[in-house]
């Protein structure tokens, strides 16, 4: 083990007294105990790959494990399977070529086509995408670089939408008889007849859906609703920025979700808002935030990010300083900060405003305690930083309207409103609110609603008291569900109308005043499904009165929503922006680009309504100081209990992505756990409660209790537990049903506050069971070799190359070599290399899913992840350092390093892995015999072995998801990152056609292309003009495990923390409250 460096003093005095040296960076809490290091089997387990036997099926393993397998049995099994394999392909299969009857003119088989579209299904703020299709089927989704919310990137969920398109469990036709329990497929004509009759008979109609910003969509629904005596459209989004919008209404009088200029902010303070991962538009936020996080030389500035949060989010992990607080204590922390800034330091325009000082004149000490034991010095420091960056800082918060009011006060006081926060110019009215469900429930229960149309939303899953809502629904005469499966809510409907996937639809979106974005189908509907808008057109044709354009288009017998959309754009957007163009030119150009971005004026400063502050005052008065009862078994009582925060995970959202295996198997960026949710408890608190990792606990709240395994998560305050939503679906499908437990069951819902997810009092009790969570962080670790280091800004400014002087990165001056390189790499036209900036990487995991989509990496399932057999080619390692109750986090994306002296190549007995002249470590699948020597010898542990024919699990339509440019690997084959060699070959071919060389922008790997923060750079290191050759010589550059003389092609740029002199390292445990 390496010694800790002299520059960083991560260990507090207490830990130094132990008679072993704690690693500077650690991946799991176990590593902090001497016992772990003394236990040899743990050391072996870290290598993982030879722990388990390669046997035919998992069931067999389980069975044999019970019986105790002998080597002889093992050989029989292997022999049998080999024999079967040979017989199966004894003769070449007869394959057919089925050409088009009429080949579309724009299509050449083998050449990809790209279509600009818009990612729907993410809520109102849909971003632009570029869909790559081959032979008429989408095979990859990229971001649309013209779209301001995407800028060429997507999130992990956006990538995974592709798999959702091919989900074999999507509804293939409309269904009837769902409520009656006799569901069966029906025809559209029957379904239409039923729905039209119901519509004609109904007076009071409610439409329930996720918010939709598309102007044409909004218009057609309005025109449709005019057919009824009383119709309302309720837009609801459990992930929406409801409270932010409510807070804006209170403070400034307009209900909007403002636009934040993270790209100009020198300081950002977040109160529980995971803006890099899940809050607002994470892709846009992260992209903007990263602009101020690039650090090239000592004179550069680095923005500062402070995060106060209960759960450990990727925003907190990426922050410079993070303060673990009590769930629901955000408002107290924000008030304490406002007090420090306005009352104590007397800074800002409200320093002399009586109402403000009166509100902030409360008991600050008590607020600090209520927030979870914050130190007043830290608050002072944050206030000073914010004041120094006034007009150039952003404060954001997630949670109650009361918190939002304080956040708004801070922003107005710091002159950020108008400067950094645009709530007036580039915004559209915020239309959704979960509160509406309470009214709807009451109306339904009273039998006042004749017809309820539920479009793709699932309140019976996300409402805490769903039984009441379900029984209210029974009082509605007709319930029509529209969606792609019979989910929890659709089970209570009379008819389920099968809806298209977003990639099969026409549509538009209007998330900002300046953005008009078009959605176009990239495949014709795969099943007998329709879009919601086309259903409305069909109903209107069937005699349901509609007005305006709807009536006009419905009167044309063959017109569809496409015609409606076009006409609607002609009337509004073309009139506004199409001057000097014909409509057809305007339409085709916009469709080609996917988005129309108008000019937008800068936001104006708004007057802060002081009256809104009473909201905050009331909230903080109600906030209880927690007294934790360790023995409490029943439901939490007033003021006593454990504070729960329900958070949105990067993968699952509110559960609408549950049936997506890519997202289920994506390791959570922080816990690195797959396929489950779990209760996060801080190490100190877990020790107090006597709970260990993988213990199963009962969590009891007001509405009931759930059973859930525990993950001991560093960085969570005492008295706090956190739990991800989106799991525990019961009707998601084969992949998503019964995975984890439904956190919403513990949430609170009321008409006054809507859906409340944080600061809920619960009790936690062990029930004696154990459950092995499928975590990946302890897999594939690098033989306990320290692999990275991080430095502070001060150290960087003193010596920009400081990182090279810290221990894991020490370089040998002269390296004796027994290697003769097979090629003179520097003289080749190309030398492919990559650089990864750990300072901007937020661990959003978009690259993980993009790589999976591009490279046909299979999903293996929970059990095999437990065995360490996950197949992702790129993983994002998460390392902690410092205090285990308040650690710092570094993320290191790890993929094949394409070492010049590759240890894997020397041990391959069949030359299946070799070097190419352009510096790639090539993996030739057809040569591999599966010895796994290479995997064993790889110091970075990036090689993945196919223990099974995973492709066989991709049944039915799922087969269509494969990228035709990449071989689908079979059993017994080793695989790993190829630097997207298929893309290199396409780029080479294109360059040869043009008789040029490949330049930086001609070629991007899948992970690079999707990265919202441009943390990954790939290119030709033999081109002196390329970005990569400059980054190779960057002051922050280091190569992982360079001391092994593997000469990796991947360069990492070290993480630099903007903290004062490294004092944070030495700080004693905080985050406790009395």
């Amino acid at each position, binding site marked *: 083990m390496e010694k800790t460096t002299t520059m960083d003093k991560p260990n507090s005095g207490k830990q130094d007294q132990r008679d072993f040296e704690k690693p500077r960076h650690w991946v799991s809490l176990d590593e902090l105990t001497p016992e772990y290091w003394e236990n040899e089997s743990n050391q072996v387990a870290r290598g993982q790959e030879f722990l388990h036997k390669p046997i035919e099926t998992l069931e067999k393993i389980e069975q044999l494990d019970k019986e105790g397998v002998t080597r002889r049995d093992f050989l029989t099994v292997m022999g049998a399977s080999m024999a079967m394999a040979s017989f199966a392909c004894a003769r070449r299969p*007869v394959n057919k*070529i*089925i050409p088009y*009857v009429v080949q579309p003119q724009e299509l050449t088989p083998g050449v990809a086509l790209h279509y600009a579209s818009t990612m729907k299904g993410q809520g109102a703020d849909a971003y632009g995408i570029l869909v790559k299709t081959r032979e008429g089927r989408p095979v990859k989704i990229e971001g649309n670089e013209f779209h301001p919310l995407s800028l060429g990137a997507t999130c992990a969920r956006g990538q995974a939408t592709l798999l959702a398109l091919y989900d074999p469990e999507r509804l293939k036709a409309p269904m009837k008889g769902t409520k009656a329990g006799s569901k069966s497929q029906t025809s559209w004509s029957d379904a239409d007849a039923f729905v039209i009759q119901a519509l004609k008979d109904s007076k009071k109609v409610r439409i329930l859906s996720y918010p939709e910003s598309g102007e044409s969509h909004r218009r057609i629904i309005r025109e449709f609703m005019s057919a009824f005596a009383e119709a309302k459209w309720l837009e609801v989004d459990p992930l929406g920025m409801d409270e932010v919008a409510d807070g804006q209404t209170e403070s400034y009088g307009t209900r909007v979700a403002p636009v934040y200029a993270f790209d100009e902010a020198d300081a950002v303070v977040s109160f529980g808002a995971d803006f890099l991962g899940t809050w607002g538009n994470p892709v846009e936020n992260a992209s903007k935030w990263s602009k101020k996080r690039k650090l090239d030389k000592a004179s550069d500035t680095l923005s500062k990010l402070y995060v106060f949060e209960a759960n450990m989010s990727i925003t907190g992990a990426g922050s410079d300083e993070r303060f673990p607080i009590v769930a629901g204590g955000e408002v107290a922390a924000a008030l304490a900060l406002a007090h420090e800034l306005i009352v104590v330091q007397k800074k800002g325009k409200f320093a002399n405003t009586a109402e403000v000082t009166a509100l902030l004149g409360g008991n600050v000490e008590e607020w600090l305690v209520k927030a979870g034991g914050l130190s007043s010095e830290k608050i002072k420091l944050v206030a000073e930083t914010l004041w120094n960056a006034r007009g150039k800082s952003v404060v954001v918060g997630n949670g109650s309207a009361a918190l939002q009011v304080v956040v708004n006060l801070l922003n107005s006081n710091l002159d950020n409103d108008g400067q950094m926060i645009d709530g007036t110019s580039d915004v559209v009215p915020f239309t959704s609110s979960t509160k509406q469900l309470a009214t709807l429930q009451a109306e339904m229960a009273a039998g006042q609603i004749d017809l309820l149309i539920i479009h793709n939303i699932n309140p019976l899953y996300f409402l805490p008291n769903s039984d009441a809502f379900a029984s209210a629904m029974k009082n509605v005469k007709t319930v029509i569900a529209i969606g792609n499966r019979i989910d929890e809510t659709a089970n209570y409907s009379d008819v389920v109308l099968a809806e298209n996937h977003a990639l099969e639809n026409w549509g538009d979106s209007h998330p900002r005043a300046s953005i008009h974005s078009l959605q176009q189908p990239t495949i014709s509907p795969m099943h007998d499904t329709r879009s919601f808008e086309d259903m409305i057109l069909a109903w209107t044709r069937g005699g349901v009165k509609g007005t305006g354009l709807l009536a006009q288009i419905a009167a044309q017998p063959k017109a569809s929503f496409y015609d409606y959309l076009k006409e609607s754009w002609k009337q509004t957007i073309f009139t506004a922006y199409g001057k000097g163009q014909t409509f057809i030119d305007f339409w085709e150009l916009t469709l080609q680009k996917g988005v129309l971005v108008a000019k937008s004026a800068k936001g104006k400063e708004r007057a802060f309504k002081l009256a809104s502050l009473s909201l905050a005052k009331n909230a903080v008065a109600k906030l209880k100081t927690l007294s934790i009862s360790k023995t409490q078994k029943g439901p939490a009582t007033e003021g006593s209990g454990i504070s729960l925060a329900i958070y949105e995970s990067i993968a699952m959202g509110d559960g609408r992505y549950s049936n997506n295996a890519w997202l289920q198997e994506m390791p959570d960026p922080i816990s690195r756990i797959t396929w489950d949710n779990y209760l996060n408890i801080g190490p100190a608190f877990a020790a107090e409660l006597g709970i260990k990792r993988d213990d199963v606990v009962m969590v009891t709240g007001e509405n009931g209790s759930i059973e859930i395994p525990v993950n001991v998560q560093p960085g969570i305050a005492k008295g706090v537990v956190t739990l991800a939503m989106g799991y525990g679906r019961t009707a998601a499908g084969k992949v998503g049903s019964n995975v984890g437990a439904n956190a919403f069951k513990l949430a609170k819902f009321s008409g006054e506050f809507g859906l409340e997810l944080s600061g809920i009092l619960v009790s936690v009790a062990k029930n004696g069971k154990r459950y092995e969570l499928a975590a990946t962080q302890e897999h594939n670790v690098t033989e306990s070799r320290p692999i990275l280091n991080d430095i502070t800004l001060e150290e960087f400014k003193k010596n920009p190359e400081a990182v090279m002087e810290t221990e894991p990165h020490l370089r040998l001056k002269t390296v004796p070599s027994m290697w003769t390189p097979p090629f003179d790499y520097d003289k080749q036209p190309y030398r492919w290399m990559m650089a990864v900036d750990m300072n901007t990487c937020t661990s959003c995991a978009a690259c993980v899913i993009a790589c999976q989509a591009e490279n046909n990496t299979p999903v293996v399932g929970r059990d095999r992840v437990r065995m360490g057999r996950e197949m992702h080619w790129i993983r994002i390692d998460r390392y902690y350092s410092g205090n285990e109750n308040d650690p710092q986090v570094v993320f290191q994306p790890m993929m094949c390093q394409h070492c010049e002296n590759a240890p894997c190549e020397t041990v391959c007995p069949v030359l299946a892995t070799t070097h*190419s002249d352009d510096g790639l470590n*090539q993996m030739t699948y057809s040569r591999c015999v599966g010895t796994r020597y290479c995997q064993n010898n790889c110091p970075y542990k990036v090689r993945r072995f196919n223990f099974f024919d995973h492709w066989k699990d991709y049944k039915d339509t799922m087969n269509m998801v494969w990228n035709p440019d990449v071989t689908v690997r079979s059993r017994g084959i080793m695989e790993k990152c190829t630097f997207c060699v*298929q893309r290199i070959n396409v780029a080479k071919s294109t360059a040869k056609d043009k008789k040029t060389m490949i330049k930086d922008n001609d070629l991007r790997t899948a992970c690079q292309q999707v990265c919202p923060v441009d943390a990954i750079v790939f290119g030709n290191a033999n081109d002196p003009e390329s970005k990569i050759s400059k980054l190779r010589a960057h002051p922050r550059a280091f190569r992982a495990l360079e001391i092994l003389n593997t000469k990796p092609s991947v360069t990492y740029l070290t993480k630099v923390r903007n903290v004062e002199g490294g004092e944070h390292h030495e700080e004693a445990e905080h985050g406790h409250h009395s």
Partner: protein
Amino acid sequence: MNAGLRKFALFGVVVVIVLMVAAWEVLPRTSNQGYAPEQPIPFSHKLHAGTFKIDCRYCHTGAYKSINAGVPSLSTCMNCHSVVRTDSPWIQKIRTAYAEGKPIEWIRVHELPDHAHFNHKRHLAKGVACETCHGNVKEMDRIYQAEPLTMGWCLNCHRGFETPTYIRKNVYPEHPDSTDPVAPFTCNTCHY
């Protein structure tokens, strides 16, 4: 060597021979050279490409712009056969299929394994003639695989061992006698 051991060794040799013969019979052949399946319509390349001298690329339009040469869509057939030989039963079959929108299912002759990626466009760009890999199609009444299409066969050309002279001239116009490789031969040229 004692008798028992000798017997055992003999037995071993017999077993190995039996296994080898079995493997020869049972294992997939690496090359499909000579494969000439009957097609759903007895389309004659000899007639079209030979007698009528229709350019290959008239039908195989992808050859110079895609990795796949492509098999023509029915509409390409109908360009001529809406007026030519409309009385033939086979042409009638095509016309019916075209009218019904049902494609013809041809039997694939030239097929590389899925882990080998071949790019038509790049070979055409270097002036490799269709016949070099596909044989003298102009003489084939029924299409068959003329060349082995094995990896060794590919590499013999790429590495310059058995490269046809005309290709060598295209690659090294100034040194037509060069024995240097004419194309890349690192694994990931084809395997990825």
